[in-house]
């Protein structure tokens, strides 16, 4: 797998977070999906977010990707306060996301999905199909994604291919932050290791990565730091070296209350 040569983020690593969330709250009716969540993400870092089903992981990343607007709280991008009011703003900041449900349009073909929302045009109004196909081939080749029929609607593709496609769509543009919501859920052993390698390569290129996963082995394989959400609250943040699977699992289930608040950022 090769990463995009052009456009990859040139983030100055001055030890300051590239993204900071401060006291983020999000309610769905009576459900407190997120309560006063603080979070910091550093360049060159793989941050894993773990938690039980319904802990608020997807909701949290959706406030970063512009899919949800938080009900209160602030977001800082490179120290500057930003309002990520819609997904376009996030993309402009260089935040790319692979959603848990992949957000593919099943009835469209591969290039149309890859270029969804950033379709190249000719004469302003018209879709540049040729360019889309050429660039799609290039992207898929670079990322070692094998999809034989680009013209087929993506609903005909296997779960693994679809996931690879969604992943390719996010990393192809050289974003500074890549968010992956359960990126290995539908993958076989080989594809999964491909994805984990890709994450490490992105990191080597200076990209900051947020990855949500239920698989503790994957989490401990790729991440530098692990944040635990429980009931919409950030209950712990641990550098990988300073924790164990056992502790993380206990934090997730609530068997272990987080006592050392000092540990959090």
């Amino acid at each position: 797998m090769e990463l995009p040569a052009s456009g990859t983020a040139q983030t100055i690593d001055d030890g300051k977070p590239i993204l900071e969330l401060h006291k983020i709250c999000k309610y769905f009716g009576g459900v407190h999906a997120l309560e006063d969540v603080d979070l910091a993400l550093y360049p060159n870092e793989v941050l894993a977010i773990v938690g039980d089903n319904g802990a608020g992981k997807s909701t949290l990343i959706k406030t970063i990707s512009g899919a949800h607007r938080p009900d209160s709280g602030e977001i800082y991008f490179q120290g500057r306060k930003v309002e990520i009011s819609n997904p376009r703003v996030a993309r402009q900041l260089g935040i790319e996301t692979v959603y848990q449900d992949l957000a593919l349009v099943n009835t469209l073909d591969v290039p149309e999905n890859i270029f969804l929302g950033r379709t190249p045009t000719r004469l302003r109004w018209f879709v540049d199909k040729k360019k889309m196909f050429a660039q799609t081939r290039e992207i898929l080749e670079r990322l070692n994604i094998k999809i034989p029929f680009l013209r087929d609607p993506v609903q005909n593709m296997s779960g693994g291919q679809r996931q690879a496609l969604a992943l390719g769509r996010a990393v192809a543009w050289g974003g500074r932050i890549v968010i992956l919501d359960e990126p290995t859920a539908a993958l076989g052993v080989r594809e999964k290791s491909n994805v984990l390698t890709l994450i490490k390569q992105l990191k080597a290129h200076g990209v900051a990565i947020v990855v949500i996963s239920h698989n503790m082995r994957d989490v401990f394989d790729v991440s530098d730091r692990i944040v635990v959400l429980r009931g919409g609250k950030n209950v712990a943040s641990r550098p990988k070296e300073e924790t164990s699977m056992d502790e993380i699992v206990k934090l997730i289930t609530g068997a272990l209350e987080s006592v050392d608040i000092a540990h959090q950022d």
Partner: protein
Amino acid sequence: MRSKEGQAQLKDAVYRVVLRNKVAVIVIFLGLILNFVTPLFLTSTNLFNVLRQITTTAILSVGFTLVLGAREIDLSVGALLGLVGVILAKLLVAGVPIWLAIAIGLAFGTVCGMAGGIIITLFEIPAFIVTLATAQVYRGANYLITGMAPVTKLSESFAFIGQGYLGPIPIPVCILAVVFVIVVVVVNKTLFGRHAIAVGGNIEAARLCGIKVMRVRVGVYAVAALCASIGAVVMTARAASAQIGAGQGMEMDAITAVVIGGTPLYGGNANVIGTLFGCMIVGMVNNGLNLLGIDSNWQVVAKGLLILFAVLSDVLTTRFYENVRRRQTLAE
């Protein structure tokens, strides 16, 4: 075991060919039946008759294809067509130049469509209920403007648009051809058209990928309303008058034609060519029943059944593809 699999695959392949071209299959099948039951059907006069009868419906349906493709619905297009027709006729009677009257009619219709679209998207109200309401408004406005009396005796030069010929081809057919080509290009080649189909396929994905979903949806209603208004011009010119009942129920013909034509009821695809075939089916059924001298009330029943058939065939097609896909994933 092997041959069983082979047989299943062959069956799939046959089904797929038939389903993909189901409109053509139905048109041929229907033609054969009609030819068999009445010798009048396959005469050139009659076929031209069918063609002329479907042009207005076809102009409307072509635009409607984009609506269904975007997973929207507009039940007001028929009533809007009627209203634009009477406004146009009133303007002409008042002495407004033809080109200006047409321009006002088209602009008015388009704005109405957009207004409906804005209400639907801004307040997130189901489209069918909003357009059902606007249809009522248009119909009422129609009756108020006309005082329930048709607007007749429009000038010959205006009637030419509906009755004249360009060479051997009736002008309405030329208009249909132009509208058809433009909509085909819009749906398949333009950013707007592709965004509309993306919204129809997965509105949430479209939003998450930064498509301005609301704008696209309003645009789709505008296109449908514009096509309905063009239909109004053609229909009014052909009759050289505006009938108060014009366009009534035409949205149902459009839904039938579009869905039989292969645009799925649940959006994400738009088959504009299929819609033309779908219009032919609607036209042939009406024409056949006329030729057979069947009571017009039965024709209403037949139309209803045709819609049911169209929807059913769409559902069965979708289910078939889902089954094939499931089998493929299992095989993997």
